[in-house]
């Protein structure tokens, strides 16, 4: 019986030992992740912890978010230092709007199968008039919006 108690004591001591040295890397990783999740701007960030050093990676929306991720990791007790490898996501491509001349011919092609619909083009804005059946409306709008206009003005188009 004494022998068993001794083993239990040794095992318990062995497991208790790491806590004397502080938190494990896995525990620190979880704590940093919790800190990152608290800020919705940091949802793209991931973290790894090795020997108390946190490495942040991922793509974030701007410089402020990258700095915030670093600050959040540094704020976790037990993190010795932070290597910040997070990057700023590239901005979305600019909106492409077809110039009026090619747009006019593209819109002419788009409405060709809908003889009850007329269209005019001014400064990138396509204005649709006339009438169309409800069942054809989606096809028409798909074709007209695919010509990459600035805007489609269809409030005067009668849907039957």
């Amino acid at each position, binding site marked *: 019986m004494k022998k068993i108690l001794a083993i239990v004591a040794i095992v318990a001591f062995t497991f208790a030992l790491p806590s004397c040295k502080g938190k494990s890397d896995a525990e620190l990783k979880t704590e940093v992740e919790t800190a990152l999740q608290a800020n919705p701007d940091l949802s793209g960030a991931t973290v790894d912890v090795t020997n108390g050093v946190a490495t942040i990676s991922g793509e974030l929306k701007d410089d402020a978010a990258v700095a915030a991720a670093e600050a959040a990791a540094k704020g976790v007790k037990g993190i010795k230092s932070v290597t910040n490898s997070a990057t700023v996501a590239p901005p979305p491509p600019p*909106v492409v709007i077809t110039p009026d001349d090619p747009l006019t011919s*593209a819109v*002419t092609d788009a409405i060709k199968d809908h003889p009850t619909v007329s269209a005019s083009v001014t400064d990138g804005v396509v204005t649709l008039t006339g009438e169309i059946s*409800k069942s054809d409306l989606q096809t028409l*709008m798909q074709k007209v919006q695919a010509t990459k*206009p600035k805007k489609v*003005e*269809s409030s005067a188009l009668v849907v039957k």
Partner: protein
Amino acid sequence: MALQEKYQALIDAANAAGVSNLAVREQDGVLYVDGDAPNGSVKDQLWDVYNQIDPNYASGDLILNVNARAEAGSQVKVITQESNLNIRKGPGTDQPIVGKAAKDEIITLISKANDQWWSVRTQDGEEGYAYSQYLEPLA
């Protein structure tokens, strides 16, 4: 940002359906949503969501351009509503008709002259230009 909130369900649906290269920008009171849909039914599903948010697409505050991506050399299906699809000599409805492809016919996409007009070859070997909105890549 207000428009992005109005169409948030559409953006969420696009992300959930696996649309790649999704770009959402607001400019001068219009929201522009572009991307590559994995197939044609995802495109139609997004248009249904669009119609729910903005009945009859009447507000004029969204330009939705999420199309199924088709590669040159691949097979595409003719998705006209009933009629045959005209194959034309050049890229434009002013060009003479050189052939026709039936609804649901599978034809070959040779190259893309522009977003609207694609160079195609029918099963009968007719070559010409067809209107891209009536062509859907095979999933």
